[in-house]
């Protein structure tokens, strides 16, 4: 009803509710499976890259970087110091762990072959013969399902040597993460893939020069790969038309929190947040209060800002981001300070600890929010939160510190009244002792 986009059709999820949709037979018979690969292997790699560039596909992991451009950064014939050719690696980032984001899990369990096909096409496009799928380790079931999908693809000759008689070889290997949110950052992921601590690397050099195992590498998100077969099979124009001027195609939006029908929805990008909430059955348990539009790291929006459209540029203009497509809805029973504190506890736990600004800052923020909740907060704290955030954002190796400041800063800016009320009232239970505030901060155990 609200899909006021005549060009829209589901690219990734047309059949995810059909039983058996995850099998290779279903994909081949009902979904035109591996036809995009057949077509791509007849094209030159540069033509494939060009097709993806023109489709305006942007990375679906969070940063929204144009995928075709990322692929074009890969060197054509890299050689080592002795003049021997270097291998190139293609890496799939399936370390989904951004709070509010659960779209990649749907692809893994319902349409894994779409992603595998996208990776093989990607391998052909960048001239790589080996790909790694980095999956979060908690997904025991999903890992097994993906392994089965890979085995099936090998058995049908879509993976391995001389794929479909084209002379192109491509292997895919699963690598299990071990429960670190930061490994979703691409250079941390590469370190983890090498069997090291998942600490982000300084850039440059960029992964396209020095990536996994020191070789040129390209890292893309699950959903990004899953969109590629459609683009090659149906052509870039059809895909680009569905989107906005600067961003093609559809997006998977995972709606969670206080809605009647939380789920992953594949939607065009010209919908507003209000439209999406309506599609997800509307707000439950009260009136709309706030929305986090793109995973926990995206600054939150007040109810009166939710008319904003959900494409990358509109959200950026509204001071937040499209991120990973996790839309978290909060109704008016929620205390924003408490909600933000649950996020800050998460960041405090997940900071890798390399940079002091982030390691210390995330702890300080969590403690300050806790102190306000417990009744030890002061008016000065509210300005101090902004000051800490200012010392974190943009000051560190990776974007994690910026991500922490997203919810922290936006909550104080947009719901300052609620903070002030808590400070005045003496915390959630109204039993706080303000004079002990400074002691609490030093010795606080969160």
């Amino acid at each position, binding site marked *: 009803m609200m899909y006021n986009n005549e060009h829209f059709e589901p690219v990734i999820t047309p059949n995810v509710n059909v039983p058996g949709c995850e099998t290779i037979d279903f994909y081949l018979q009902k979904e035109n499976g591996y036809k995009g690969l057949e077509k791509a292997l007849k094209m030159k790699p540069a033509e494939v890259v060009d097709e993806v560039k023109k489709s305006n596909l942007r990375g679906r992991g969070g940063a929204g970087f144009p995928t075709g451009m990322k692929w074009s950064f890969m060197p054509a014939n890299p050689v080592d110091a002795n003049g021997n050719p270097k291998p190139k690696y293609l890496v799939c980032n399936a370390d989904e762990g951004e709070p509010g984001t659960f779209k990649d*899990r749907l692809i893994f369990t319902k349409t894994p072959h779409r992603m595998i096909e996208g990776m093989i096409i990607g391998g052909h496009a960048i001239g790589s013969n080996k790909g790694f799928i980095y999956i979060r380790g908690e997904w025991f079931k999903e890992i097994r399902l993906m392994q089965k999908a890979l085995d099936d693809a090998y058995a049908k000759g879509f993976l391995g040597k001389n794929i479909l008689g084209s002379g192109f070889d491509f292997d895919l290997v699963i690598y299990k993460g071990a429960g*670190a949110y930061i490994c979703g950052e691409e250079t941390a992921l590469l370190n983890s893939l090498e*069997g090291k601590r998942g600490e982000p690397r300084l850039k440059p050099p960029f992964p396209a020069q020095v990536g996994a195992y020191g070789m040129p590498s390209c890292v893309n998100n699950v959903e990004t790969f899953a969109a590629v077969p459609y683009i090659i099979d149906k052509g870039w124009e059809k895909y680009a038309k569905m989107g906005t001027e600067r961003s093609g195609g559809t997006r998977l939006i995972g709606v969670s929190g206080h809605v009647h029908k939380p789920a992953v929805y594949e939607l065009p990008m010209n919908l507003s947040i209000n439209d999406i909430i309506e599609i997800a059955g509307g707000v439950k348990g009260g009136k709309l209060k706030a929305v986090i539009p793109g995973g926990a790291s995206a600054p939150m929006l007040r109810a009166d800002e939710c008319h904003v459209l959900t494409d990358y540029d509109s959200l950026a203009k509204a001071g937040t981001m499209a991120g990973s497509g996790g839309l978290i809805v909060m109704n008016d029973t929620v205390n924003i300070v408490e909600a933000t504190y649950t996020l800050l506890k998460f960041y405090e736990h997940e900071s890798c600890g390399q940079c002091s600004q982030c390691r210390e800052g995330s702890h300080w923020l969590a403690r300050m929010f806790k102190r306000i909740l417990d009744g030890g907060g002061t008016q000065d704290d509210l300005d101090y939160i902004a000051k800490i955030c200012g010392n974190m954002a943009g000051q560190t190796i990776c974007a994690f510190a910026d991500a922490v400041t997203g919810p922290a800063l936006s909550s104080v800016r947009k719901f300052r009244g609620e903070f002030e009320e808590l400070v005045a009232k003496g915390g959630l239970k109204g039993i706080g002792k303000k004079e002990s505030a400074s002691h609490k901060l030093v010795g606080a155990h969160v």
Partner: protein
Amino acid sequence: MLSEKIKKTINGIRHQFPTEQALLLPILHEIQNEYGWVSMESMKAAGEFLNLPVSKVREVASFYTMYRLDPIGKVDVQICTNISCWLNGADKVLACAERKLGIHHGQTTKDGKFTLTQVECLAACGTAPAVQINQDYFEQVDENMMENLIDQASRDLDAGKEVGKSTQKDGEWP
């Protein structure tokens, strides 16, 4: 201190990776899976097996939350309390599990059966609250279901059955 099974598994995937160190996460996963935790002895053995100094093994093992460096209970009840789960009552589920088991999160029951862990986002926000028992996911968990899950796990444990590894059966796909 490394079982033959682990050595065989790791040798089987060795050809897939360009470096020995890349096998470190996989070997730690195998150790965690087989022994339930990663002891200093097993870290030493893993280091010897992969030709890595034990300091390197420990440095990596201590970085990732899935490797438990202390022994835990046979059943690890992991409850997500991040935003979407919290909005849907995860704190009640956690409190219920604490009551039922008589421990705080982060603790193990005296009989060594259960460990209760508060975890961060399990990427099941659409079906919140999410709980992971050993390796199995349970979604849309309420207090009633939480109690039943604990009871069931306790019964299975007493009957000598493996708990929370239903997706790992050989020859059977989840």
